[in-house]
């Protein structure tokens, strides 16, 4: 364990937190941990189950940025509004 490691509240599932799969997402987590910076723990979810994350990412990219008359800004506003309704600050 790095002494710089940020003091963040542990997640419910330590195995998810400790088992980033190889790839850029795990590298980002290590970089932030090593430099003592906090990062959103959704990164651990992304890094744990790449097969699911890739599909969620593909879906998000298409629905938020894909071909559609609604501008990306407006679509992000819809997402932010819904997240606020769900009390999810992230």
């Amino acid at each position, binding site marked *: 364990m790095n002494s710089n490691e940020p003091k963040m509240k542990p997640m419910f599932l330590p*195995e998810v937190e400790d088992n980033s799969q190889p790839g850029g997402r795990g590298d980002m987590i290590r970089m932030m941990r090593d430099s003592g910076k906090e990062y959103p723990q959704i990164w651990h*979810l992304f890094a744990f189950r790449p*097969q699911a994350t890739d599909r969620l990412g593909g879906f998000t990219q298409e629905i938020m940025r894909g071909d559609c008359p609604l501008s990306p800004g407006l679509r992000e506003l819809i997402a932010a509004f819904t997240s606020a309704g769900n009390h*999810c600050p992230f």
Partner: protein
Amino acid sequence: MPYITLPEGLPGIRGPMAFRPETAKPLNELVEVLLRGPGTLTPGERELIATYVSSQNDCFFCQSIHGAVAAYHLGGNEKLVADVKRNYQGAEVSSKLKALLAIAGKVQLSGKQVKVEDIARARQEGATDLEIHDTVLIAAAFCMYNRYVDGLATWQPDDPEMYRARGAKTAQEGYGKTP
């Protein structure tokens, strides 16, 4: 009658998926990974979680089709599927699955309802972190699918035979193979 003009003759989620194939592809691949990908929960158990969440969300199409897929995986046991929907605590499923269904039910209400005690109970019944993780993701994803299906008022036939036949086909072939 759907709120927007969707391809005709395709029940439930299949209408909007045919309408918007670009978003349908990752959505189908996600459900394939979650319900049929490598994992220690059987496809039947995972379909039961999806069915239970869909029934809590009162989504007729999703609980019917995934209930039919679950029943197929469980040797045609439609009674077990009905029992899980009505009162899973009294159903003939493992105590591990009951603890996971409790977590799924809380995710259906709100992610914030899941408490450390729920996780501890699932662990005590032998659930691994991967199984708990996948349960939460299945429950969360099905809240999305349920809202997608009902938010557009898709056509949802009530013929159980249709769901039985399609459920068997999906259980054999997987998701997203035929529109």
